[in-house]
């Protein structure tokens, strides 16, 4: 038999422990979604009488489908906006020299240090004064541009040599076309990583959607699920069922785009 290096054994053990810690809640989530309410606090993974009734109830008697659609809509639209604005701003900051460029960049960067919890109050006041409370625009507007994305895109555009842009200028296309036809295609790995991060971030966003929405037709999934948890009693089996369904798109994205995510994480982590 081939000798296995001790170092490998240690690494695999650590990875295994990590995987168990990460997977357990997910497994229990799926397990609970097949249980009746009275069994919910029992540890058994397989229920004594597994049921699909939670799923039937979820789609038949709650507004889950609507929340699902809302979540998809909000996450997709936000992602598209982020891709467009972040790359446009990152490109401009990277490739054009103008007065105040550095200050603007630092200002954008500094927003990275402010946690969402601190921002929701000004957002709320803004939304209230503009009459955007309880509307799709209200849900979306804080996220249409992100400091992180601008930073990421700017760093990536640094790796696009200016000669390409000059060549395009001589070929005679407009500055905006240079951006869309020449510069953007050269940073697609960064764009796809940014798209994944943004989509997942918005898919799971809770605090702001909770604050800005008040009617159930506008809830996103996390907000909708939290409404299953009442003052006196939590319908855990429903929350788990909703969460299980909500995690499917995420899992799907991970499976399909695994390669890009890993690349994105590496880029996000190492690109200075």
């Amino acid at each position: 038999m081939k000798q296995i290096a001790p170092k490998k054994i240690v690494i695999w053990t650590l990875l295994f422990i990590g995987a168990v810690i990460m997977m357990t809640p997910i497994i229990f989530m799926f397990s609970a979604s097949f249980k009746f309410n009275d069994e919910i606090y029992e540890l058994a993974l397989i229920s004594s009488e597994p049921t699909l009734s939670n799923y039937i109830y979820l789609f038949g008697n709650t507004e889950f489908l609507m929340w699902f659609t809302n979540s998809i809509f909000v996450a997709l639209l936000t992602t598209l906006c982020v891709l467009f604005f972040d790359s446009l701003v990152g490109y401009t900051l990277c490739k054009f020299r103008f007065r105040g460029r550095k200050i603007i960049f630092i200002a954008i960067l500094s927003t990275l240090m402010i946690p969402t919890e601190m921002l929701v109050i000004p957002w709320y006041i803004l939304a209230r004064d503009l009459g955007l409370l309880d509307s799709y625009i209200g849900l979306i507007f804080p996220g249409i541009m992100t400091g992180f994305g601008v930073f990421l895109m700017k760093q990536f555009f640094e790796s696009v040599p200016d000669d390409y842009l000059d060549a395009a200028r001589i070929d005679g296309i407009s500055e905006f076309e240079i951006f869309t036809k020449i510069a953007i295609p050269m940073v697609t790995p960064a764009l796809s990583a940014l798209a994944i991060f943004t989509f997942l971030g918005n898919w799971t966003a809770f605090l702001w959607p909770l604050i800005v929405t008040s009617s159930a037709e506008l809830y996103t999934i996390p907000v909708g699920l939290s409404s299953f948890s009442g003052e006196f009693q939590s319908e855990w089996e429903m929350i788990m069922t909703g969460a299980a369904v909500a995690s499917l798109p995420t899992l799907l994205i991970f499976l399909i785009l695994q390669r890009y995510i890993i690349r994105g994480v590496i880029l996000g982590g190492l690109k200075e």
Partner: protein
Amino acid sequence: MSKVSLSNISKSFGQGKKSVEVIKNLDLEIADKELLVLVGPSGCGKSTLLRMVAGLEDISGGDISIGDRVVNNLEPRERNIAFVFQNYALYPHMSVEKNISFGLRAAKMDKALIKEKVAAAAEILELEELMDRKPAELSGGQRQRVAMGRAMVREPDVFLFDEPLSNLDAKLRASMRLEIKRLHERLKTTIIYVTHDQMEAMTLADRIVILKDGEIQQIGSPMELYQNPANQFVAGFIGSPEMNFLAGEDGKTMGIRPEDIYLAGSAPELSEAKRMNATLQVSEPLGAETLLTFDFEGQGLTVKVPGVATVEAGAEVELVIDGGKVCFFGMDGERC
């Protein structure tokens, strides 16, 4: 008519105290159909000058005209020029064909006409087989030809080349050099060609402009510059191996090319000869000729002799200098 005139051109980067003047009140006329080569050491402002002609860099002062139009404020695309970049700058996500036709498509030219022009350029540059490839799938020489194709199909008034061959190996560089020269003879378009390689300048140019620190040192045909350099900088820059400079009396410097010094035994009849003794340090046989490096009173002296030299290192040899070919330079480096 597509002559190019630069009059009193200057260029500074940065503002206020940090501003550096890179091009200083430069005047230059490039005749129609001329192949003009700009050479000079790294950082002397060659690329900057070329980019100003192209409209990629603003000019700080003076006028540039192409043909009869002053182009100072025109966009690059309005100047009817083509630019070949040092790194080719082929769009990596487009096929060779798309790369070549990009400018024509941007100009909304008729599709059939584009096809015709691209095919013609592809034939001249022998790119037909490669039209569907991406730039990453091409060799350096092929990329170079695609870059030229992209420039050619625009049918520009002026070609601007910025060190187009410097990324190629020596052999390919020599053959591409020839190809550019052929292309020039065929297309008869005005070309401004930037290089820091004096050999490229000598072989290609109708006229050479030597630039140093943003100022023109001398303009002339390759042989004029070689035989009659205006100053010590030009004398040292043109020619390989470099001209020998020997410190003389009263601060003057004597310049003599390596091929104008002979070993005493094989010197031809010279109307004006100067004899001296020097010690051989190194002998470098190149096949058709041999480079000998001598020590003369503490100064290095390179001599180029035909064929194989039989002198031993360390030997003291009598040398004969062709006095008619000697140049003298004053303290300021100017010819005197």
